[in-house]
């Protein structure tokens, strides 16, 4: 069983690479180098700030876009091209298929982020001439981004297990935006009363909490991150991902494939 998941995962990784996903790294590299060079000329004193902000934001955005668009294609492409038929006629269970796809994309994103991290640190080195102790927090921010990607991939898979690719992309992107305001949403919910409060609170708690994983601004200002926050965020992201995957599996189990 786990072997099959691993085979599907590695095939998914291979597909992403051969689909030239990693070319996005070239765009990223260009962006970072351009920014690093420009920033040195233009502003004094905040080069580090700009590089960190820009670099981490780009990592986050690129990664989310990849997670959404490839994540959605993972299932819908196989159904549309009917490559799924020959897979499911083998002793591969539907849930193994979805889980395998998840790990494949998650692995791709992890590798992608790692390579981007090198780019960010390289640009940082260029503008600051040396590493500071607080640069370690940048790695934490990158780690949080990876957690975000895991959640987003699961959401993309979940939506694509029942919606058309376009709708799935819209839903996933909408959840990303809303998830970044998740703390505010809970604040809004607390200010309402009665039935609205129940509904709003319920929704606010079920929506993905991306805002807690977005520490770009504070890391840019060299603020430390508490280790209990790292711990709880990790558990939360894993639990949330598992929850969404379970929902996706349930839906996919019962889906009639055209």
């Amino acid at each position, binding site marked *: 069983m786990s072997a099959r998941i691993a*085979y599907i995962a590695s095939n998914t990784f291979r597909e992403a690479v051969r689909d030239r996903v990693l070319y996005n790294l070239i765009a990223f590299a260009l962006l970072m180098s351009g920014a690093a060079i420009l920033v040195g000329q233009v502003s004094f004193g905040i080069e580090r700030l700009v590089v960190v902000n820009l670099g981490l934001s780009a990592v986050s955005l690129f990664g989310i876009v990849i997670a959404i668009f490839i994540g959605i294609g993972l299932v819908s492409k196989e159904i549309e091209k009917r*490559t799924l*038929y020959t897979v499911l006629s083998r002793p591969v269970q539907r849930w193994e298929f979805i889980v395998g796809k998840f790990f494949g994309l998650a692995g791709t994103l992890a590798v992608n982020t790692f390579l981007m991290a090198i780019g960010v640190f390289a640009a940082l080195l260029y503008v600051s001439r040396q590493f500071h102790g607080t640069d370690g927090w940048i790695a934490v921010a990158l780690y949080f981004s990876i957690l975000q990607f895991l959640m987003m991939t699961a959401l993309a898979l979940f939506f694509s297990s029942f919606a058309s690719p376009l709708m799935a992309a819209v839903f996933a992107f909408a959840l990303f935006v809303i998830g970044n305001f998740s703390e505010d949403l809970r604040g809004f919910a607390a200010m309402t009363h009665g039935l609205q409060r129940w509904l709003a609170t319920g929704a606010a708690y079920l929506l993905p909490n991306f805002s807690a994983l977005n520490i770009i601004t504070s890391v840019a200002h060299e603020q430390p991150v508490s280790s209990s926050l790292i711990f709880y965020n990790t558990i939360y992201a894993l639990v949330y991902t598992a929850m969404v995957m379970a929902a996706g599996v349930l839906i996919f189990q019962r889906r009639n494939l055209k």
Partner: protein
Amino acid sequence: MPAIEILGLEKTYSVGFWRKRPKRALLPLHLKVEKGEVFGFLGPNGAGKSTTLKLLMGLVFPTSGSAKILDMDLDDPRMKARIGFLPEQPYFYDYLTGQELLNYYAQLSGVPGKERSHRVATMLERVGLKDAANVQLRKFSKGMLQRVGIAQAILHNPEVVFLDEPMSGLDPMGRREVRELMEQLKHEGKTVFFSTHILSDAEALCDRVAVINKGELRGVGAISELTSTVQGKIEIVWRGTAIPAALKNMNAEFFVSGDSVRAILPEQQQEAALETLQRERLHLISLTPLRTSLEEYYLQKVQQASANATQTAAGGRA
């Protein structure tokens, strides 16, 4: 134990957005296929052949009824390890090479690691794709795709093979190759269940056939029995364009084409007709008894109005 046992499988879709109208893709189907049989599933487009196959593969869930393959449930992984499936107009991961694709499928089918590369190489050779092992599938021709499709269906040495329109879109050479492969499978004792609307293939390969139309099973029977009815007619072909007067009285039909005449007349006239031809010194080309063709059986079954919703058949003539 039959290889395939279909017990009332039924599939109804609800179409439409607001008021859902039911669309009956498959009426309750009862069918048995024995081990080692080559079974043809015939019907026009949209008859329900693909639906039946998808139901058997667990890609689509039945509205009612059930089925067993090798006496196991349709979602049993042990069963799935012993069957192979080639879908209609297949498409495979086009970024993989032939060898990578078969290797991937071998992994998923549970072929042990040590055997895999050997099995894959053997299979590629068997379907004539040895040279394409390192070519990406996006460069494959239609015939090559079909062949790699058969390869993935049989590489794990399944006992039952399901093929959905295996000849579709192939040129005569391609069809010949697929037919040969299917005959090999038959000789290896595998059960082959395939759907097609090309009757000559069915006639050549199958032990039994079933005819389905508009989601309903119309008839099942062994080829030999269906086509054994001698019509009581013979066909004589001779050279030349002359038609002897004596033959004209024999309740016959004549077709003249080119430099030969083809006559169809009752079997009893066979001796008299041959004598007449000898007398007239006409050169005999062939003498053939006419049998009911599968085509006629097929057309009859397809066109007959839907009689019963279900027909049970386990080898008898319908």
